[in-house]
């Protein structure tokens, strides 16, 4: 989305996204291996389990920071609308799927999928929001 930008705020946000994506895979594999081979218990197990989520949440923090420092109001407004689109889409999907799980025995959707669903809706919202301002 911002790959071609020369602005430092955008570059920092994009860099955080790429670094997070690069960190998640080894951390997930590392955590899975640690549970498999060391049979972790207690506080160590909790720490290792949440470790792969740290880079994921780092992107959220960077997104918040980016929205706070972004000087171009138009660009910020577009991003906010995309995030709100993502929020609405995510809440609608989880609510509908939740009730389908309860009543229609739909397959269980793990909580870990809520975050990718949110970004999927943000990305889908982006061209829609941009089209409105053409």
């Amino acid at each position: 989305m911002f790959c071609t930008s020369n602005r430092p705020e955008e570059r920092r946000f994009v860099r955080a996204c790429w670094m997070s994506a690069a960190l998640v895979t080894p951390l997930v594999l590392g955590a899975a291996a640690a549970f498999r081979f060391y049979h972790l218990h207690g506080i160590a197990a909790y720490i290792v389990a949440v470790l792969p989520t740290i880079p994921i949440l780092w992107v959220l923090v960077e997104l918040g920071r980016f929205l706070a420092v972004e000087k171009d109001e138009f660009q910020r407004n577009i991003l906010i609308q995309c995030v709100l689109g993502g929020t609405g889409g995510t809440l609608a999907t989880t609510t509908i799927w939740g009730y389908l799980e309860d009543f229609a025995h739909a397959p269980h959707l793990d909580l870990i999928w809520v975050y990718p669903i949110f970004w999927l809706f943000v990305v889908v919202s982006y061209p829609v929001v941009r089209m409105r301002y053409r």
Partner: protein
Amino acid sequence: MTDCIKNPAGDHMEDRILFIGMPLLVANIAMAIWGIGYRHLHAAGAYLPAILFALMGVAFIVIFGLYLKEEQDEFQRDLWVQALLWGIGATLTIITFWGSLVEFELAKGLKLLFVFPLFMLITCIARLVLRLRYR
């Protein structure tokens, strides 16, 4: 009346909640009371009550989206947007942490249905805190 003239977007939202959201809420409550026994429904028969229940949540999302679109007072809209951003950020944080604990069998699974109330709770708290900040 004066408030309605001052803030037509807020007035429209109240009307939509009153005439769309509330009837759906009442229908939900009635179905929940009646529906204790309809978990035995299968296939297509079970999808209808599930979708009807979910409609209320979706309706509130749409009503709020329309409010944000219509709100002319930039300060009020900005307050809500900030609260919503805090709400989604904190909700995703909690859900991702919890989901990871569930994946490694360290916590019990949380139903997807609770994502929406959790988001609403955090957004309302954020809104209160933001209002206090701007007093």
